[in-house]
């Protein structure tokens, strides 16, 4: 089993969610996060004074997937999140030892 984490532009979340839904993904977790990557922060001007905002708002998506589905899900996210401009984000995949569905106690891939 795989755990897919994607940090993306907040304004792409709706599109990504729809694409994942269409690809048969049954659940995602979304968190609002702040951070910086190669894009760095941005500058705002208040009454003529420049203010550097170090952290950029991003959305973090987390998805549990079967081993066989992981590569396809990553492709779906790339397609939906890509705007071609700096700050589109990052996706990484890690292995998961165990998944449990709390209600039924099912374990492993059937719990995904």
């Amino acid at each position: 089993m795989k755990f897919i984490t994607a940090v993306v532009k907040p304004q792409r979340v709706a599109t990504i969610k729809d694409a994942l839904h269409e690809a048969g993904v049954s659940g995602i977790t979304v968190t609002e996060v702040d951070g910086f990557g190669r894009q760095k922060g941005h500058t705002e001007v208040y009454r003529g004074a420049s203010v550097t905002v170090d952290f950029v708002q991003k959305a973090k998506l987390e998805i549990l997937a079967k081993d066989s589905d992981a590569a396809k899900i990553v492709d779906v996210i790339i397609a939906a999140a890509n705007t071609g401009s700096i700050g589109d984000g990052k996706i990484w995949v890690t292995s998961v030892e165990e998944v449990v569905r709390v209600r039924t106690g099912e374990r492993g891939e059937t719990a995904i």
Partner: protein
Amino acid sequence: MTNLQISGADTAWVLASSALVLLMTPALALFYGGLVRTKSTLNMMMMSFSAIGVGTIVWILWGYSLAFGPDTGGGLIGDLSHVGLAQTLDTAVGAEGHQIPTPAFVMFQMTFAIITVALLSGAIADRAKFGAWVVFIAAWITLIYAPIAHWAFASQGGNGGWIIDKLGALDFAGGTVVEINSGAAALALAIVLGRREGFKRDAMRPHNIPFILLGAGLLWFGWFGFNAGSALAAGHLASVAMINTQIATAAAAMSWIAYERIKTGKPTTLGVASGAIAGAVAITPSCGFVTPLGALVIGLGGGVASAYAVSLKYKLNYDDSLDVVGIHGVGGVVGMIGIGLLASKAANSAGGDGLFISGSPDLLFKQVIAATTVAAFSFIGTWLIATVISKTIGFRVSREREMMGLDTVEHAESAYDL
């Protein structure tokens, strides 16, 4: 009641104007509250609301009497004959045919004292002890505001305040008393209290710009009472003052963002709100003395002058946190000088003609004297009051408490539960 010829229309207008001007202080609380960081929002707003509370009490006990009681000689200050509002309940003020009950006038002028001291709080955002601020309000209205209000507002048949009755400088609604006074006092306060921790180093973004726009909008609305109400009669002069207020405020909102667009590339919502205030400030002394086109020029000039002036604090290294000097001080000077240049008897036959109308610099000269004297008295007096408070009860919170934010350390509250 003695046999007074009270004008119902004029009284109604002054009563309504008093309510309009009072609204400006909660509006200022929103304007200032939005400009600071979340951790000191409530403290910022509390400084305005406490100005309403303390200002009201001081005004009725002795402030009104010092400002508008019979002159004690020399045009410097009123006497104590109206302490506790004695001899005001059954009397009237105003020109013949336009008399209003004295309590209406007391109320109207009270709202001016309140907003003026509240304005100063912007210079010392995020770092003043609340208790010290309360003491400061009472001391400042008594020692600084009341005398200056007497100088410029207390017309007593040639024997009242020196600016209005002897010098003959023109100040319709408080360019000296409210604007230049608050600007100079703000500078003194900012210097005595010192810079905020992290000034010029940390990003200090306004935390709620919609608050700022709401506050600016309500200030704009209230300013009609401030300026048009200062005619103290519901007639021609109030109407001229109102249209001029609208023109200059709108013009400055646009000239500020035009300046921004050229200087930094983007017109900002904070700029449009700040510009509106700068324009309303600049037209405050002049609204009853200039033509609508004069008001347009003063508004355009006031917006640009203040947009430029707010950057000076970084160069001069004083932390007038919310730009009281740049907006109220500079705007007030623009308005006072604007009268000296653009005043026209076509707008107000009881006013004067400025340099551009009459060719004579007489009025301009008087305006400069009034502006510089008020600025000097206010700066020195405020510096002394703030220094005494600093050395006795302390005016500034500790570094640690400042870092934590004044809302929790001074009031045990947070503005937001997010």
